[in-house]
Every structure is written in structure tokens, then in C-alpha cells.
């Protein structure tokens, strides 16, 4: 069934209009950000409210790199390097603490880096942002290129997710989440694995940021260091199902579509409605749509069984 879906996704950009292609590209992008966050949230148990900082670092690294003549791929890799370094410097001391501190600290990290980007006008253009080199292709080609780029990135994220679950790093992460003291007593170097997980999460987000920058051709601190991005991504994870492979993607899809609908119909009530929906999801579907659906089917199957045995 997934294969069918996959084929459909490949064919879509050739049938749909630019608006829809861009919408789905955004869904892919948020799917990547959401999956990166779920790596920390669902598997490790640490919620990085400020993970958007890596989106910003990726976007700015790409922008600054390209404005100095670097090809996109190199600039993007630069972004990954910068993000990884930040993770290691910041993560090693802060990941030793409990989740609360990490959550707050990550917001602070984002804010600090945003402020630095805003003020280091010489390097980053300050409040004026950065313009990316123009891509000399017709607009619908551009749409398709970025559609497939983001899709590829999303597939990469899924692949990394699967690899991690089945591997030794997956065991390490899960045991840290289950009982950190016990994990340590077994020989798990918890600081290393926590930081490593964050580095992976950051790198994926950073790539997304770089690609986004190139796609939009223009970035500014307010867009790419916007805490709303990671908070809404966390929401997407919750919506779709924490700790599942497809959950964050589903959540991204539902959220983006909803967001578009609300934006176009109820612009003034946009944030309010988002807030209300969040409240409703948390109160009534606390484990996300995917898990909720699964449980619903299980319950129905069980009751059907009960009816059968009674007959």
C-alpha cells in the first residue's frame, strides 16, 4: 500500500498546479523537521522546543556560503557542520540535565543565535536577510526540483529512522529513555548517545533549512529562527503519533492542510483556531491520530470477536 502511495507522490507534480506542488513540498519539509524532533522526543524523551535553530543555521550557512561563491551542496554541508558543532558544544553540558532544562535552554539557544544573526550585519545582512543566487530555470521546473528534493530528504529521514531503531544506537537511545541510571550501569555512554541523537536531528533540520533558503531565494531571521516552526512541528508529532515512523509525516500533512484552509478562510482567527485545535487534540487524542486510530480498530476488532463468541 505504501508503494502505491509512493508512486502517486512521484506522479503528482506532473498533474497538479504550482500551488499544490508547493503545498506538498512544504508538507515534506515539515515532515523532515517533525521527524527530527520525534527522534529526540519519541525515542530519547527530550523535547527540543528550540530545534528550529538548526533550520536557521542551515539556511544561513547555505546563504552565506553561496554568497561567497560556494556551490549549494558545499554550503549545505557547511550548515550541517555548524549545527553539529553547536550540538556538541551546547548539548554535552545541557543534555546532562533533566528534560525541563533542555527544553527551556533550547529556546534560549535559538533566541541567542537569532539575536546574533540579527546583529552580525556584516556577515548575515542583519535585519535585511540574505538573498540566494537566482536559479535559472522556468518556475514550474523549480517547483518540481524542490518537490523532489524535499521528498528525497524526507525519505532520507525515514531511512535514518529505520536504521536507528534496528541498530545498537537505537537500543542505546531507548534504554536511556526507559531508565537512564540502568542504562549507564550497563555501559551506555549516555552523554555521547544523547548528543549523537541530537546531532542527527540537527543535521536533518539543517539540510531542510538550506534547501528552504535556496527554494525561497530569500531568508531573514524572523522566518528561519522562528520558534513557532519547532513548536508547530512538535504539535505535528503529537498529532500524528509520537515515536512512530509515519506519525510525524501524517501529522505534518494534516497540520499543513488544516493550516492552509484556515489561513485562506479565517485569516484573522488563524492562530486562535490553531490554538483551539491543539487544545482539542491534546484533550481527546493525546497519543496522536495514528495511535488513536490503531486503538480504535483494535477495540472494534475485540468487540466484534466478543459478539461472535456470544452467538
Amino acid at each position, binding site marked *: 500500500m505504501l508503494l502505491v502511495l509512493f508512486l502517486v507522490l512521484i506522479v503528482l507534480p506532473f498533474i497538479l498546479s504550482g500551488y499544490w506542488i508547493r503545498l506538498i513540498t512544504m508538507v515534506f519539509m515539515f515532515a523532515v523537521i517533525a521527524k527530527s524532533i520525534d527522534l529526540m522526543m519519541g525515542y530519547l524523551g527530550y523535547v527540543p522546543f528550540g530545534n528550529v535553530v538548526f533550520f536557521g543555521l542551515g539556511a544561513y550557512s547555505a546563504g552565506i556560503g553561496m554568497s561567497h561563491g560556494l556551490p549549494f551542496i558545499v554550503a549545505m554541508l557547511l550548515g550541517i557542520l555548524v549545527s553539529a558543532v553547536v550540538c556538541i558544544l551546547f548539548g554535552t553540558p545541557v543534555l546532562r540535565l533533566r528534560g525541563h532544562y533542555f527544553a527551556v535552554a533550547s529556546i534560549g539557544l535559538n533566541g541567542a543565535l537569532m539575536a546574533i544573526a540579527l546583529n552580525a550585519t556584516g556577515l548575515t545582512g542583519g535585519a535585511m536577510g540574505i538573498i540566494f543566487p537566482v536559479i535559472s530555470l522556468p518556475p514550474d521546473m523549480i517547483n518540481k526540483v524542490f518537490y523532489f528534493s524535499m521528498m528525497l530528504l524526507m525519505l532520507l529521514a525515514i531511512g535514518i529512522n529505520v536504521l536507528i531503531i*534496528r*541498530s*545498537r544506537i537505537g*537500543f*542505546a537511545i*531507548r*534504554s536511556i*529513555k*526507559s*531508565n537512564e*541510571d*540502568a*542504562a*549507564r*550501569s*550497563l*555501559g*551506555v*555512554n*549516555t552523554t555521547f548517545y544523547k548528543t549523537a541523537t541530537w546531532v542527527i536531528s540537527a543535521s536533518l533540520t539543517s539540510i531542510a533549512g538550506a534547501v528552504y533558503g535556496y527554494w525561497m531565494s530569500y531568508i531573514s531571521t524572523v522566518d528561519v529562527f522562528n520558534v513557532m516552526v519547532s513548536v508547530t512541528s512538535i504539535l505535528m508529532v503529537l498529532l500524528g503519533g509520537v515515536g512512530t515512523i509515519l506519525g510525524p509525516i501524517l501529522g505534518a500533512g494534516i497540520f499543513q492542510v488544516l493550516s492552509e484552509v484556515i489561513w485562506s478562510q479565517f485569516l484573522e482567527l488563524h492562530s486562535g483556531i490553531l490554538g483551539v485545535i491543539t487544545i482539542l487534540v491534546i484533550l481527546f487524542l493525546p497519543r496522536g491520530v495514528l495511535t488513536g486510530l490503531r486503538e480504535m480498530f483494535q477495540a472494534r476488532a475485540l468487540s466484534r470477536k466478543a459478539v461472535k463468541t456470544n452467538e
Partner: protein
Amino acid sequence: MSKLLLEAKEISVHFGALKAVEKVSFDIRQGELIGFIGPNGAGKTTTINLLTGVYRKSYGQVLFQGNDITAITPNQVARLGIARTFQITKPLVGMSVEENVMAGALFGTAGRNLSVKAARQKAAECLDLTGMNEKRDFPVSKLTVPDRKRLELARSLATDPTLLLLDEVMAGLRPKEIDESLELIKTINEKMNITILFIEHVMRAVMSISQRIIVLNTGQKIAEGNPKEISENPQVIEAYLGRKYMERRSTDGE
């Protein structure tokens, strides 16, 4: 005499003004089976914590196979070959019994070279040894207390330790289970050649299998010797039963 495995030299840890463990020294030799006893609150678990690097601020020195391990972290201690169980079991919740033991195999002393598949194999061996094989797919939440203790033991065995520190593995067990546990500990010590230091309150267990016993009271070592010596040691008796009992015993005569 066999090789010196672990040396604890005047190890201490203070929690504020409380001297939880104060200047405790002892040696452990390769292959020994040592009982570690003392009244509640004597500092036995704290000592194990000290040995395994749980406390950031401690005093004294701990040598393992000749190397100073006083300042290293718990995961490094485990890597070197010292495994421990917890008094209040700490199973990896959310993972199955088998996965718990696999975690031990993957990160223990030989972990670096083990593939996930090989780890599963090793886990199966440890589960077999502790009689938990049938429950290997159980989620941890479904286990009874004795099962949890068995899981903890299997898991620490999976790390392939040289020295095993057990913390009250028999608490809450019924007599038959205690006997099984005793057999298991002896097997691990004699057949698998793992040195064991075990904290226990069940006296008959300690007396029956320990080669040597170390006694702690209010953070200090008060006695060390073979089971017979310990059972007749006046300070030990006093620690457990109180001074009045001691005095009564000596005035009544033996």
C-alpha cells in the same frame, strides 16, 4: 592466594553532614564469593554506588585490576567489567525482557564487537541461565518482583562482567526461590568464574555460601572474616541486636 581484583582504600562519601560511608577499606580477590552485610542504613548500597562511580564527589581510592577507577563514570565502570544490580530493580520499561538483556550485551565489556544478532544470542543464554527464557517477549510491566530480580541478574550477566555486585537479589523471595537463587549465584561464581560481592539480609543465605563476609555499620567497616567468625563477632552481634543484648549475653554466659 588468587589475584587481587578490587581494592577499596578508605573510600568515603558524605551527604551534607551525614557521613554515609566513612573510610571503608577492603580487598576482593579473583574468584571470591563475598557476602556484604550490615543493618539497614549501614551504607552497603552506598558503597556499591561508590565503587561504580555514581557519586561525583567522593574520597579515597578504588583500584580495579591495578588501575585507579575512582573518578570514572558508571558507564566506564561497566565497560571495564564491573556489573551491578539495583536494590529496587530498574528494568528498562517499554522494552521487552529480551531487549533488556540485549542492552546489557550490546554495551557491556564485549559490546563493541557484538552485532545485534549476536547480542540476541547472548541474551538467550543469560535468560536460560536465570530461567526467564519463556518470558522473553514479555513487556517488563508484566513481571512479578522475583522475575524482575531475575531479569536484573540476567541483564548484568549479559555485560560479561569480571566482578558482579549484587544488591539484595533475594529480598521478597519465598524460601524455595531463595534456594534457587543461592544455587544460581554459586553457579555463576564457580562455573562462570565471576567474582561476586553480594549484599543480603537473608542471613542463612549469606552464611551458607559466602567464603568471606564484610560487615558494615553506620558507614564504617566493623568486621571481616569467614561466616563462623562473623557469627561469633561481638561487634556484629551488637550492631544487629543492640548493646543491651550483648551485655545480657555476656552476663548470662554462653
